[in-house]
């Protein structure tokens, strides 16, 4: 445990020094505040408070940005250590690969959590200051933060998988970009195409919601909207969410980090430094 903490503090220090923590927090904050401010002009039209609209926009933002930030934090770590020669060195110390991975995960998860809570929290404070926040929308925001952290931890773990399989940092960067593109962008496009092609058939009504929930990024959308009728209204995700049991999205968000870490552990074990 002491060794896990030693690795975690070192990795967190690296995160701070190479400015990823600052970049991630800044990026999320700027977008969240901008979305909240722009929401201030049209929230009245839907008859819900500002923060409700803002959480809906921020959910869409989080689906793209949080996986990106998570992958950027994690893709370098194993391939980079291997390239520098320090991976072989660390592994000759009495520290297991699991402990090494756990330490890195702890650091990267802390970094991501700080970025998410700061960014979305500032947006919540702004909405509150503008008088557009209530109990329900505050809960929705908290739900978004939790979902975003879970989504991020899944992609941190996926970043490790990519890193463990990559021979170099450059290859890991390419791999991380590819994974982001496939899971976050192309996945949705393919589903959209299938739904249009199916034209309201069995796939659209029975299969599609489950396939949607299976992707962690889309699971965040579902998780965020199942909170309230208002959220469903402003995001337009209500139809898919209605088919699924309430636990589905959260289950997907909880399973992915665990699955990702297990995969990362297996991939890391195969790697000869």
């Amino acid at each position, binding site marked *: 445990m002491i060794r896990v903490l*030693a*690795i975690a503090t070192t990795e967190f220090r690296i995160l701070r*020094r190479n400015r990823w923590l600052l970049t991630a927090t800044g990026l999320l904050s700027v977008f969240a505040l901008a979305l909240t401010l722009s929401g201030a002009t049209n929230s009245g039209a839907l008859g819900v408070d500002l923060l409700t609209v803002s959480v809906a926009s921020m959910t869409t933002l989080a689906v793209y940005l949080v996986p990106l930030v998570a992958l950027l934090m994690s893709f370098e770590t194993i391939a980079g250590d291997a390239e520098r*020669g*320090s991976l072989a*060195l660390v592994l*000759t110390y009495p520290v297991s690969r699991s402990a090494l991975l756990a330490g890195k995960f702890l650091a990267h998860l802390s970094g991501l959590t700080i970025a998410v809570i700061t960014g979305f929290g500032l947006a919540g404070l702004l909405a509150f200051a503008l008088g557009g926040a209530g109990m329900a929308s505050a809960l929705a925001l908290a739900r978004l933060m939790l979902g975003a952290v879970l989504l991020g931890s899944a992609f941190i773990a996926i970043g490790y998988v990519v890193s463990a399989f990559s021979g170099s940092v450059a290859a890991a960067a390419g791999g991380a970009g590819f994974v982001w593109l496939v899971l976050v962008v192309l996945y949705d496009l393919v589903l959209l195409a299938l739904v249009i092609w199916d034209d309201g058939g069995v796939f659209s009504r029975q299969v599609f919601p489950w396939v949607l929930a299976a992707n962690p990024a889309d699971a965040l959308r579902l998780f965020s909207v199942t909170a309230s009728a208002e959220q469903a209204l402003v995001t337009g995700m209500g139809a898919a969410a209605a088919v699924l049991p309430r636990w589905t999205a959260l289950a997907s968000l909880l399973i992915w980090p665990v699955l990702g870490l297990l995969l990362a552990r297996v991939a890391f074990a195969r790697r000869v*430094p």
Partner: protein
Amino acid sequence: MADRPVLDAVGLTRQFAGAHGVRDVSLQVHAGERVALLGHNGAGKSTLMKAVLGLLPIDSGTVSIAGQPLGTVAARVAVAYLPEAVSFHPALTGREQIRLFARLAGVKTGDGDALLENVGLADAADRRIGTYSKGMRQRLGMAQVFLGKPMLALLDEPTSGLDPMARHDLYALIDSLAAGGTGVVIASHALTEIEARTDRIAILRHGQMVADASLKELFARAAMPIHIRVKAKHDAAALFDRFGGRRINGAQVEFAVTQDQKLARLAEVIAMGAQVADVEIIPSSLEDLYRHYSGQEERA
């Protein structure tokens, strides 16, 4: 107990699909001994080290470190390693890096600070590693080798790419490591330094150990010829007719003799009297010896 080797590898085999493996290699290292591990690139030096460190699974053979079987925590605690051309995360300072290693090794972080001083990095301890020169990075790598007083240290090309001063400093550190009772294995190409700095030489060729003895023994066993170079006063033709060998720029002749012929041939040279202007005896160098063992083709 003093005789029990800190490294005892017997019949170690690790083959790859391509080349670069090791086959049936045995190596013993005792406490305080400095062993040079020589061989061409791809002869298996790094493979042997990584196998002993437990970084590479081995196909067959047994390895024990300070009496502990390979792969146990006790074996990992007893061994230290310096990878070839290691570099650390550029964003960390030297002190942060050595303290991390101290915690991983389970020793006090203060030990790490003291080691930075020992290797001459006290002034640079709080600077980022990204600003370090290659020699400084190598000294930082050397500092972590000392952590926790290992029984065995494996150093992979510790001096490659360093200037002569930095090399000298590094060898001084290696000497103090061995003086403290650590068995040290040094994989290297820098032959001339090895000559003075090691107790024993092991040579790998195509993944097999072809020599493992003290320098003196290796020379004796190789029965390397000694060269005698004779300079003629006027014309080297007479000398060349007499001794054979090869002519060097008209006035000199160089020929090879074995150890037991040496004195007899020298007497002959001196008997030539006025014809000889000068005579030089050239003993075989470590480089010749290395070439003898690592270059010879399999004859038998």
